[in-house]
């Protein structure tokens, strides 16, 4: 799938701006993946991931501008820095949950905003202009950047796919559903909660670095705002936060709505709100879940058919109410 997507810029008639637009979608998808890991799988609501986006963006920006670091290293460094700060934040918010967690993380994004607005090295509202993007020493344009983005997305997707199916993913979901029961299974709440925070922040941090390099310019005017945080959360909720495809749908939705309503920016806002409410009412688990329902029903029928075929006795020989 990612290979097919990587061929997209080679299609005839595709122009630089289209490629950039798709790159932007990819960035939003990655950021939303980070948020979804926390919201959907670990059950911690975050309205502060704009802060991690900013941390990632500024880490890579400062490294590439002042030290002339390669974009690939910049991405890795932003993931690490955001991950470490996420780890620390996980400790600070260890005892928060639900709405309190939302407010706490919101506070964190304001905190990051205040820092990038006021600490001189971040150049506040003047912003930082970045040098042209270099990957492995080669200068890249819109098309090259697209490949960097799609490779990053492929890596984060594989990571999340593996993670949520592993024992660690099970521990995240156990903590989400019942902390007491999870602890009775030997799951270390402190460790796994901070780990979830850390990985989530690292993924969104990488998206932040990409987001800075796509325009080669970052300033606190954009990154100190809370709209990123809100957008990512909306992307998760609309797409479906506990499913692999959720951030893909949500990320594309968040980027494409303002794109289609370029001249009517207010309408785009309204539309986002309307869709969010509609999704919450009609498909609380997200659009991805809505799309997956018929597939799941089909698979269940297949399973039932296979079961019936393998056992000659009728299914009712063992009542499901227990007893033998």
């Amino acid at each position, binding site marked *: 799938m990612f290979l097919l997507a990587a061929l997209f810029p080679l299609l005839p008639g595709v122009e630089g701006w289209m490629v950039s637009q798709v790159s932007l979608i990819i960035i939003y998808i990655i950021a939303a993946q980070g948020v979804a890991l926390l919201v959907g799988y670990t059950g911690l609501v975050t309205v502060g991931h704009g802060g991690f986006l900013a941390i990632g963006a500024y880490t890579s920006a400062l490294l590439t501008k002042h030290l002339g670091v390669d974009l690939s290293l910049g991405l890795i460094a932003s993931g690490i820095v955001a991950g470490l700060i996420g780890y620390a934040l996980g400790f600070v918010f260890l005892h928060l949950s639900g709405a309190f967690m939302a407010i706490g993380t919101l506070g964190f994004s304001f905190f990051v905003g205040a820092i990038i607005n006021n600490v001189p090295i971040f150049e506040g509202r003047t912003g930082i202009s970045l040098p042209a993007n270099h990957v492995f020493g080669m200068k890249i344009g819109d098309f090259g950047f697209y490949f960097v983005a799609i490779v990053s997305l492929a890596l984060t997707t594989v*990571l999340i796919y*593996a*993670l949520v199916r*592993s*024992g*660690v*993913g*099970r*521990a995240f*979901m*156990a903590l989400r*559903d*019942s902390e*007491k*029961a*999870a*602890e*009775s*299974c*030997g*799951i*270390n*709440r402190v*460790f*796994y909660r901070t*780990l979830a925070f850390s990985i989530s922040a690292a993924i969104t941090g990488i998206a932040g670095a990409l987001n800075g390099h796509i325009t080669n310019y970052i300033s606190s005017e954009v990154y100190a705002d809370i709209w990123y945080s809100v957008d990512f959360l909306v992307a998760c909720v609309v797409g479906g936060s506990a499913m692999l495809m959720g951030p893909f749908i949500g990320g594309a939705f968040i980027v494409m709505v303002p794109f289609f309503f370029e001249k009517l920016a207010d309408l785009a806002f309204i539309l986002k709100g309307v869709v969010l409410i509609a999704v919450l009412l009609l498909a609380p688990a997200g659009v991805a879940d809505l799309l997956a329902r018929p597939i799941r029903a089909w698979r269940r029928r297949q*399973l039932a058919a296979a079961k019936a075929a393998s056992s000659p006795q009728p299914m009712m020989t*063992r009542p*499901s*109410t*227990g*007893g*033998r």
Partner: protein
Amino acid sequence: MASYLRCENVTIRFGGVVACDGVNLDIEEGKIIGLIGPNGAGKTTLFNALSRFQSYESGSIFYRGASIDRMKSHEIVKLGVARTFQNIRLFGEQTTLANILIGTHRLIGNPIANMLWLPWARDNERRLLRRATEIAEMLHIENELDTLVKNLPYGVQKRVELARALAADPEIILLDEPVAGCNDEEITDIREIVHRLNRELGLTIFLVEHNMSLVMSVCDYIYVINFGSNLAEGTPDEIRNNSAVIGAYLGEEYHR
């Protein structure tokens, strides 16, 4: 005498209420030990202290001779102590299989290797999956592996919870009212399962229970507490004929 889990003078207070007042308890290896007492005697509080869900003011709890006073609830699972809850605490939105797999958590090895599906972690995951299905078969819930737990009947949920505790490969398992709210058929089932776990797997079992027929038929040794203190202890026959226990809890009908 090899004692597995031992309580010495455990005292627990909730404000002015003394829930446990210097309770002593000795759980021997390979035995089925019961804890009974009237409502409010402090049974569940003591049970929670044993599984470290409840802190205690004074006294000590030892596991294989080592103090677990400073351990957290998730740490004692790693020692081999698993528990169930009185009011089932399962992951309702997840399947039976997922629930049992969560129980295998202490066997996942290095979490980072596990998370990245490194080769040896992959083998381990396969082992855990096999373990989970074997346990499901042992408890006769193998047909419900793909069912969401919240859709299962109560008696089956009780067994899923037991399966989840067993999945951790414990040496001792603490059961908090394993048959509360179960019908006669389910009670017969649980009794047989408890016996088998003890005989075939060599598990030490500690259970808090109000159902006297279960307690009297499965336990090797019984502790009775009343108002937070030890009232009596002994074999089922001794307990049945203990006048203090009859007066405080059992009533005349259990006296032969």
